[in-house]
């Protein structure tokens, strides 16, 4: 009887430890969010690096002892994010170590690689993912993610001719090499790249708008050209 009580106590304690693993991850997630919003802390390199190191260490351990796959992933991706918060050498080492770990396990998982690029979108990470993955959709995402700053510049109207060339060449490469690969939202990469090229080169003031054929919200088919002869405001909208 006594033995049994002891066993139950042990099991309870063990499960509490396991739970606290997940709890640590959630807690650190909140702490990182708060830290990012704290301008004073973020501008104090030493303070934020110190915190980041403690978070990374805790998360690394949490990943190692995680019982479930998702728990492990959450800890690793958050560790990767935390390792980018400071700029000192030790954190840089962690950054490489965590990335290597992540790539050794998840390089072909398009969604997870999307998250990885979301937390560390530097060139080194993109190149490492590109080299590690066998998944064409992930490779396309690497190339595409490289273009974000160029798209932003294009929107503001200050894209240099050199950057424009890079933008067009990279989109053309995505079309050619990965056009039939499907992205995480079910679109062909070829269509994504073609749309961006079209917006840049053809959807301009003075050019004729391309046809749209589709169905209205009641399911009735119609075409944009049905409205020739009228002034038309085309409004890409959503209720959010």
């Amino acid at each position, binding site marked *: 009887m006594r033995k049994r009580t002891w066993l139950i106590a042990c099991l309870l304690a063990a499960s509490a430890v396991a739970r606290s693993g997940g709890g640590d991850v959630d807690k650190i997630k909140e702490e990182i969010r708060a830290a990012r919003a704290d301008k004073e802390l973020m501008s104090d390199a030493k303070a934020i690096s110190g915190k980041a190191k403690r978070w990374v260490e805790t998360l690394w351990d949490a990943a190692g002892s995680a019982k479930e796959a998702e728990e492990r992933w959450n800890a690793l991706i958050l560790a990767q994010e935390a390792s980018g918060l400071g700029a000192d050498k030790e954190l840089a080492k962690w950054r490489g170590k965590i990335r290597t770990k992540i790539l050794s396990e998840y390089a072909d998982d398009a969604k997870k690689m999307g998250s990885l690029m979301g937390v560390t979108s530097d060139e080194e990470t993109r190149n490492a993912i590109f080299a590690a993955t066998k998944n064409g959709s992930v490779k396309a995402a690497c190339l595409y993610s490289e273009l974000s700053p160029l*798209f932003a510049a294009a929107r503001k109207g200050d894209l240099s001719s050199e950057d424009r060339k890079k933008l067009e060449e990279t989109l053309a490469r995505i079309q050619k090499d990965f056009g039939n690969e499907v*992205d995480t*939202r*079910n*679109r062909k990469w070829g*269509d*994504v790249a*073609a*749309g*961006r*090229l*079209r*917006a*840049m080169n053809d*959807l*301009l*003031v*003075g*050019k*004729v*708008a*391309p046809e*749209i054929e*589709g*169905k*209205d*919200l009641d399911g009735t088919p*119609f075409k*944009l*050209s049905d*409205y*020739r*002869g*009228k*002034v*038309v*405001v*085309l*409004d*890409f*909208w*959503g*209720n*959010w």
Partner: protein
Amino acid sequence: MFPHERSLVARLKDQPFALIGINSDGKLEELKPVLEKEQITWRSFWNGPEGTAGPISTAWGVTGWPTIYVLDPKGTIRYIGVRGEAMDEAVDTLLAELKVSK
């Protein structure tokens, strides 16, 4: 955004004008009550169940919502990204052009 568009559509109801939406809500059944509540009477293409990743917005390379194009009666793009008063002004300018050319 809906009140402005509603008033634009109401003001120009007898003019050669149409507001055409491309709606990117993935779940139509959740959108239907909103149409009624907000009195969204103008016609929209539906971008499909993938929502903002649907075929029309993808073909147009749209990455931000709302995205606005104003077309003249020939279907030529004349203004991009005009909102609020600027949208009204753009439409009024094109309607005035149309009157002169007739």
